[in-house]
């Protein structure tokens, strides 16, 4: 009997692993294809350590946003407000720095403001029972407006201190290879991937996205989980906002307009389903890098911006189409 139990346990693990590998294969091949293609088209400029560093740095903002967004999408929701929240967080951070506060305090305030936006999203969604699309669409406007109000409708110059080093292309010390922000993104993604797969919160996110009624029936605190998930998404938008400030070294209330769509696209390209119940952090990372490499490669080969937009649009549709095929 022990042997039988062991066998089924092994089977369970293999089954889960096989499924995950399969789901990531498509996006990963897509990423390889993009990298391979531009390596052929522009071997000197594209295929260099410096350029890869650039791409990695460019991915940080979408990548961090996508970590939080994965939780939201897995639970069957959507957060349209992250672009605005990124701007708000960067403005709040800049304001505190300009007033001479310690950088740690400024960062904390920026991230917490964003987390608060997410918390409000979650509370509105669960208390008022309004669909996430509408609530976060509202927050998209409110956060953006609030950012503009705080910044007096202009960019805020502020001393960036070590925040500028977060997104530098030549990190100190040299053995870091890529900017500290990139490492931060990777570590957080790794940790949150673990949280999604190996914690009660993660399982509940999947359950809610897969079948909310069932989750409720089984005693899963659906509302609480949702609030936590949206707050989490806000916190990651806040981190992305801090990185955005580090990159620009000004607090710009008009930055990251439309970024939420890139972030959602990254999650979806990585195997997330807008119907909920599916998605992975690793997939979202691959999706984010795929888009960055594409944008970078197009720039280097002189492909005009509008062509990039068309290609990225097509890739989103193709990713979902491939996903559907896989499910049949």
């Amino acid at each position, binding site marked *: 009997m022990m042997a039988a*139990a062991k066998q*089924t346990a092994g089977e369970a693990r293999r089954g889960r692993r096989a499924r995950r590998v399969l789901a990531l294969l498509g996006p990963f091949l897509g990423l390889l294809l993009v990298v391979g293609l531009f390596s052929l088209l522009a071997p000197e400029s594209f295929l260099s350590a410096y350029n890869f560093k650039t791409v990695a740095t460019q991915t940080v903002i979408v990548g961090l946003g996508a970590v939080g967004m994965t939780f939201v999408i897995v639970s069957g929701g959507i957060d349209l407000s992250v672009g605005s929240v990124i701007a708000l967080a960067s403005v709040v951070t800049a304001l505190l720095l300009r007033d001479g506060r310690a950088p740690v305090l400024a960062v904390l305030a920026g991230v917490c403001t964003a987390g608060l936006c997410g918390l409000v999203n979650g509370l509105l969604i669960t208390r008022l029972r309004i669909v996430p699309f509408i609530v976060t669409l509202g927050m998209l406007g409110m956060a953006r407006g609030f950012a503009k109000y705080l910044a007096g409708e202009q960019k805020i110059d502020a001393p960036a201190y070590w925040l500028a080093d977060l997104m530098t292309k030549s990190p100190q010390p040299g053995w870091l290879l890529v900017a500290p922000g990139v490492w931060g993104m990777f570590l957080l993604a790794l940790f949150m991937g673990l*949280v999604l797969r190996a*914690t*009660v919160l993660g399982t509940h996110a999947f359950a809610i996205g897969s*079948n909310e*009624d069932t989750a409720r*029936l089984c*005693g899963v605190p659906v509302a609480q989980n949702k609030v936590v998930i949206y707050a989490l998404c806000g916190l990651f938008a806040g981190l992305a906002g801090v990185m955005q400030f580090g990159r620009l070294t000004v607090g710009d209330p008009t930055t990251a307009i439309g970024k939420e769509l890139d972030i959602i696209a990254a999650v979806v390209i990585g195997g997330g389903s807008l119907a909920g119940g599916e998605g992975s952090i690793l997939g979202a990372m691959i999706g984010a890098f795929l888009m960055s490499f594409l944008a970078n490669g197009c720039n280097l080969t002189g492909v005009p911006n509008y062509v990039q937009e068309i290609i990225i649009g097509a890739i989103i549709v193709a990713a979902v189409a491939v996903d559907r095929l896989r499910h049949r």
Partner: protein
Amino acid sequence: MSGAAPVLLCMRGVKKSFGAVTALDGVDLEVRQGEVHALIGENGAGKSTLMKVLSGAHAPDAGTMELAGAPFRPRNPSDARGRGVAMIYQELTLAPHLTVEENVMLGREAARCGFLRRRPMRAAVAEALRALDQAEIPPGRKVADLGPGARQMVEVARALVGEARVIVMDEPTSSLSRQDSERLFAVIEKLKERGLAVIYISHFLEEVNRVAGRFTVLRDGRTVGGGALPGVAVAEIIELMVGRKLEEVFPAIPHEPGEVLLRVQGLEGEPLPLAAGFELRRGEILGIAGLVGAGRTEMLRALFGLNQVIAGRITIGGAEDGGAPPRRRLAQGVGLLSESRKEEGLALNLSVAVNATLSCLAPFARLGWLRRTRQARAASRWIERLGIRCRGPWQPVSELSGGNQQKTALARLLHHDVDVLLLDEPTRGIDVGSKTEVYRLMGELAAAGKAILFVSSYVPELLGVCDRIAVMHRGRLLKPRPAREWSDSAILDEAARGAAG
């Protein structure tokens, strides 16, 4: 059994009203430990409301409930679950994206600092599946990849892991094949042995007679009878349910077969059937029996153009083709009643009027604008003619009972005035009274010269309604024979093993 087992669940004088509507008007129910108790009643009799009260979804207005001698007043479904009352609903409530293991442990995960501890969870799941003799269900498989039978087992395992004392099964076999039903009956036997009580809700009275030890009949929100099974005639139970002498479940309406309206030769569809051929005449009801998965639904869908036709000839009223889209089929006077009325057959959030007239809006349209009053008038005619119980033509279909939804779906075919009706499980999930009305309607339609192809998994109704019956076996349609030459067991035998000789 020596003496009576102790009473585990006891409901007395339970009442519940919604506004002016009284759903429960004094229900008594007593369920003993280790017994299967059948809860029987027509749709609208209050079964589902009673179960919602029991599961904590609704609070009763009056009456008492006791579980194992202690007062039982669950605040919500998860509270009821925690105290040992688990529901297994008609529409299964599993999360399709999660694995068997994750589903079974949902809401009671073993964790340390928020991180899952897979080993004890896996042991608990394996233990539950073994207790049910279902160890072959792989715990790591996604539920979406399991068949309906296995899914039900997962639900039962979930109840078991949650230390349920009472398990309520609402129409558990309605979507199961014969083998899966047998499997379920075996599992119910196991549950009984473990001393659990099972409340078994079903429309299939033969099935109830087989699994249940006692029964309670509800009518109009009241307990009207009960007793021990087996030993009570099915007819007696039906009379209790409908509250009147039921002369015939299958009304005999004379109809005469006329000329051939539909001829099918060597039909092969994607993915099924492999080979199907038959003739269907005006004024004739041809029944199609077979196991789930034999290809009956697929045959209807290929005929109607919803599935691809690979080979074969279809002749409708003289015009021959090798498959045509649904639009053309409707124009030829062929209509299909889908087996899944909720997913495909009806637009649930739309009104009765829209659903009944959706395939044929032209008479109400002028320059693309719909004339609502005419549409409503037409719909009202069908509401009256079919006895659809609703507040009016503009009531959303989702608010109607299963039987009335099915009649609305039928109204669409009739409104379109089709000559050939392809009916796929038209009586699934509807109560005895509604079934009889559907049978009567089929007889009347045949008498009016319509041709009806009647797919059903419920053998008694095929025998009771059809002129001829053919069995489908593994994608092949066997030779039709007159209904009087068939018997219950002959059909099941041919369905399971193919043509004899």
